[in-house]
């Protein structure tokens, strides 16, 4: 079973590739159809942000296990998606996370939307250095 997938994001076509790989991994991990689509949608948004705002970057997806520090409880299996770029960075992350805020006449829905779709969402951005978004979604307890 493949538990890690890395996708270089350079163009819009790579967004489709990342989404499909995420879908495959999520299915293998045991997520149901509706959850797989939510994960694919979140991947689509963060991948698109790389293309739109940073030009290039990568998406790494893997299987994870929650730790004791997770507010979702420890020992849960899930999927982790990391979207990383070395683009311009975000001057005001709190503002960028607001629904409807866009610096490029986008819908401004990508970041807040991806956060809603996933269980955990973390964004680390440094001006002139780049942006890393880390998101996780847990499987229900067996």
């Amino acid at each position, binding site marked *: 079973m493949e538990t890690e997938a890395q996708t270089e994001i350079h163009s819009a076509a790579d967004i489709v590739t990342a989404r499909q790989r995420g879908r495959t991994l999520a299915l293998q991990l045991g997520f149901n159809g509706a959850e797989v689509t939510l994960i694919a949608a979140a991947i689509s948004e963060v991948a698109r942000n790389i293309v739109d705002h940073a030009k290039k970057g990568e998406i790494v997806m893997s299987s994870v296990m929650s730790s004791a520090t997770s507010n979702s409880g420890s020992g849960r299996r899930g999927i982790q998606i990391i979207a990383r770029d070395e683009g311009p960075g975000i001057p005001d992350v709190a503002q960028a996370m607001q629904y409807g805020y866009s610096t490029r006449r986008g*819908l401004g829905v990508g970041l807040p939307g991806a956060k809603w779709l996933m269980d955990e969402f973390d964004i680390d951005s440094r001006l002139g250095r780049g942006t890393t978004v880390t998101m996780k979604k847990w499987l229900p307890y067996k």
Partner: protein
Amino acid sequence: MQVPILKQGGYLIASIQSVLSDADLLQLRDSLGDRVGEFRSRGVIIDVTVLDVIDSFATRMLRAIAHMLKLRGAETVIVGIQPDVAFAMVQLGLTLEGVGTALDLEEGLAYLDTKTKRIPADGN
């Protein structure tokens, strides 16, 4: 991958065949704009049954296509949004505001029939 556009009566039907890249969506917009003029179509159906995800970009494009076609005198209806896809759109806070939607092709045709019905000038 190009989206085939079929002419059916006074309408055009664009059936999206696979996951679309941004370029495909832009191209779909341009060719629908041209065809509506060429065939003097009053209505357009965009069938998205096979789309695995409708993200914010796709939503923005579909809205833009519908609004542009409206300015060209044609009504647009999006058909075939799958339940999981619709659920993800709701979670993302995406709406197709101002764009017609219908369950499937048949419902889409019925929708266009009502929308494009000519009302007689004298009221009869």
